[in-house]
């Protein structure tokens, strides 16, 4: 049953290539919904208190310490759910767009899904790395084939930057393995390191994750890549791929190197906080809507990364909730930017205005998304950010206050974008209101966000036992004096 998680995406990625052109989009949607259904079934069968459910655990290449070890707990399942919900939404939101080859596009999205699913359920270091890198190829191809005209330099930078980071993760994995029996996560966790060694090895992981998230000084690839990618590529990057890095911090970085935490927690939290303010300030000054949301994304994920590093139970649950929220809202916002661009041919805020009068339905859903993005109560962002900020305050109240500015700054840049594009004099020609497929995407996202805002316990209760286990494994390891 669980193996279908690998089989379904591969099957759809290959079979879509031979489907008739007119049927490709519907077929892709069916595939996306099939994996979603599978995830829902797995979640229904999973007992949140049951700990890690590993469905394959056996030796593979003993001489090199590689095992076949896959499994999931509440956190992984939440990430799987996010992935499998967003993939059909991304495919659906692409219905209105002309692509040079729908077959290749859909196939690449499924390959991407395969890599993402693999990352979220790998419990062996090498498999984690392999899937982590596999995701890079389809996203590169999507952006290369379907992106904007001057995309090549940006993509080159993106690929080299992230690959560079990943190689250091590989180095750290190899280094850590030289002390352990195998790459299985339990064996790696059992290693006790001297703090200096742990810090260096953790640095390799951190570099890979920090580049992918991206955390403040490693973010320079992100705005250009986001704005040059096609809309679906941006959605995949910001909606899911970046969660991969946050998940990596949770699952791999914290439990593997508890010895280093004393030394690195503070710097990483400070970097995350700088990212919160820095991203927000730059977002305020942007004219291109996609770039604006890209910087906003830096701001939001900086907060999540900082929250994860506090290694506190409520904060971690909040971070997971916020990861889901950010995935949903980011996809919605980039779709909104794309809706405007597709109709008017521009994303520049200076050239926009008065869309609300022409397209009231769009204005409503965009406003709802804007509220979700600035985390007003009754949206999931509120609960998530509240939990994270609470954790940050108890960690250090100065950092908490600085990070808290995200609430104000977030409102400034989001509503500035909304106001400039939707209100004011009508500057542009006719604006057709939302099509059915776009409406569905917006509605699903908003319903999910509001549901999680009203009833966050659904997520928090689901992940809480797993988070407790994770933290127990961090705290158990005795700190070397």
């Amino acid at each position: 049953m669980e193996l279908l998680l690998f089989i379904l995406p591969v099957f759809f990625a290959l079979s879509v290539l031979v489907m008739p052109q007119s049927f490709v989009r519907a077929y892709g949607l069916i595939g996306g919904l099939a994996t979603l259904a599978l995830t829902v079934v797995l979640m229904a069968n999973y007992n949140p208190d049951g700990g890690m459910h590993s469905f394959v655990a056996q030796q593979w290449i003993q001489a090199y310490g590689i095992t076949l070890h896959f499994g999931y707990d509440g956190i992984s399942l939440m990430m799987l759910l996010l992935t499998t919900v967003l993939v059909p939404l991304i495919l659906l939101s692409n219905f209105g767009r002309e692509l040079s080859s729908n077959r290749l596009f859909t196939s690449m999205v499924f390959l991407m899904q395969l890599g993402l699913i693999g990352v979220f359920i790998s419990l062996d270091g090498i498999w984690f790395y392999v899937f982590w890198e596999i995701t890079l190829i389809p996203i590169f191809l999507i952006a290369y084939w379907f992106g904007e005209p001057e995309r090549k330099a940006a993509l080159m930078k993106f690929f080299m930057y992230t690959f560079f980071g990943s190689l250091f993760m590989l180095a750290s994995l190899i280094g850590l393995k030289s002390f352990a029996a195998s790459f299985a996560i339990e064996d790696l966790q059992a290693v006790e390191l001297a703090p200096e060694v742990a810090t260096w090895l953790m640095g390799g992981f951190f570099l890979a994750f920090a580049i992918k998230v991206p955390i403040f000084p490693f973010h320079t690839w992100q705005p250009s890549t986001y704005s040059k990618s096609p809309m679906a590529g941006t959605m995949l990057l910001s909606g899911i791929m970046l969660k991969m890095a946050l998940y990596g911090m949770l699952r791999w970085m914290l439990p593997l190197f508890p010895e280093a935490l004393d030394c690195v927690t503070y710097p990483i939290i400070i970097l995350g906080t700088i990212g919160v303010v820095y991203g927000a300030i730059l977002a305020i000054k942007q004219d291109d809507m996609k770039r604006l949301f890209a910087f906003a994304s830096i701001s939001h994920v900086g907060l999540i990364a900082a929250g994860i590093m506090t290694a506190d139970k409520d904060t971690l649950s909040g971070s997971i909730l916020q990861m889901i929220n950010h995935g949903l809202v980011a996809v919605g916002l980039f779709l909104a930017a794309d809706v405007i661009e597709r109709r008017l041919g521009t994303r520049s805020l200076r050239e926009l205005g008065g869309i609300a009068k022409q397209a009231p339905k769009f204005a409503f859903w965009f406003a709802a998304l804007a509220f979700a993005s600035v985390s007003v109560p009754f949206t999931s962002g509120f609960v998530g950010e509240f939990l994270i900020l609470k954790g940050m305050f108890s960690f250090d109240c100065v950092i908490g206050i600085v990070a808290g500015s995200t609430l104000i700054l977030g409102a400034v840049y989001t509503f500035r974008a909304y106001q400039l594009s939707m209100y004011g004099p009508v500057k542009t020609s006719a604006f057709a209101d939302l099509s059915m497929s776009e409406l569905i995407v917006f509605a699903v996202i908003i319903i999910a966000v509001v549901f999680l805002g009203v009833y966050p316990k659904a997520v928090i209760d689901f992940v809480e036992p797993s988070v407790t286990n994770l933290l127990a494994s961090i705290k158990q390891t005795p700190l070397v004096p």
Partner: protein
Amino acid sequence: MDALIVIFVSGLISIFAAFAKKPAVVLLGASGGLMVAIGLMVNQLITGDTFIQIDYEGLNFDSIALIFSLALSVFTLLIISVGYERFKEEPNHTGEYIGLLVFSLCGAMIMTAFTDMFMFFLGLEILSIPIYVMAGSRKSDVRSNEASLKYFLMGAFATGLLLFGIAWIYGATQSFTIDGIAAAVANGDVAENPILLVGILLILSSFVFKVGAAPFHFWSPDVYDGAPHAVTGFMASVVKMAAFAAFLKLFAGCFGGEMLHDFWAPALAVLAVITLFVGNLSALRQVRLKRLLAFSSITHVGYTLLVILSNDQLATFDLWFYMAAYGFSIIGIITVGLVVNDSEDRIEALRGLGKRNPLLAIVAVVSILSLAGIPPTAGFFGKYMVFSHAWNDWWWLVIIALINSAISIYYYLRMLGTVISTEETPGEKIVVNPLTAAVLVICLIGMLGLGALTPYLIG
């Protein structure tokens, strides 16, 4: 041993079959012989029996020599099949071309199986001399002639160094056999004997030349660039694998003891660093396919030197896997280059390949990914194996190698971008003949499936 004889005989057959002036007969003879030999080797690997028991003290086809010979024969078979398209244009000489490649394979197999220095030297020469000729096989092409002459002069020089080194080592150890030398250097007095050390350095330099590591790499870009595609592929896959197999056998086996290792390893480590940077930085701005591949192969030599340094029990398997993965990748991309057949051999000629022939494009993409070491291709697993075993003693070298992997992404990605680009109007469609298509598919399977085979191969 019987496989070697079969291959030698099939080489003879293909030379004599040339009198019939029917290229197809030559190809059939050579590839039939190679397939029989491959069958014999697989049989010997699995059951441990040979059909003809020949004992000769100079050669020992143990399982290590067999897996190397097996890969070498498969690569030769692939290259002959690919090159046939070009060879048959000159029906008078097809037999010579194919025969020389097959003879060269005999030398390569001897280099994996030798047990004394004499056979080692013979193997090296049997391997090299046909390649000197083959590099110049496009007689009317100035660059091909240059490649041949350059390779011959530099090769002769390196051979001289090697002979000289063997002589010094004989002087120190009074032995030509591997076992004799290993036993002699186990004695502390011999191991510190300067005569031995000079001999080791001379042999080391000749190996470094043969595999094309910096600073003895200057011949390789010109030779790779000038030689015909098939010969370039042969040099990159077969010659390199055989040279590395012998390199590892001598240096990990004979000179691998604690004291001697401490003597030559630091020197080799420095060479590895230089090789990595020289190969990578020179490759960045190349516009011609084979020249780029030449520099990329210098970089790959740099990674492979880590195997020689690593001093691990699994080093032999690491080396085999790495070179096998590299061989499939390079044959894949060279075949694509040969089929596209651009007179200037520009990378630009690969533009829009996906529209012109999807199979070629897929093979090109996977080859590039494998050369760059990106999962899930065999190139990644090879790199991982090499790095993981080198880590314990040479962690700083591994980090330098990883940085170089990151640099190399730049030119691989540029090449990848050219292959997959869609917007420009592509050239006309390319037709691939069935033989070449089969080679491409085998390369593809090799690049994607080698990693999954590891658990079986390692036993």
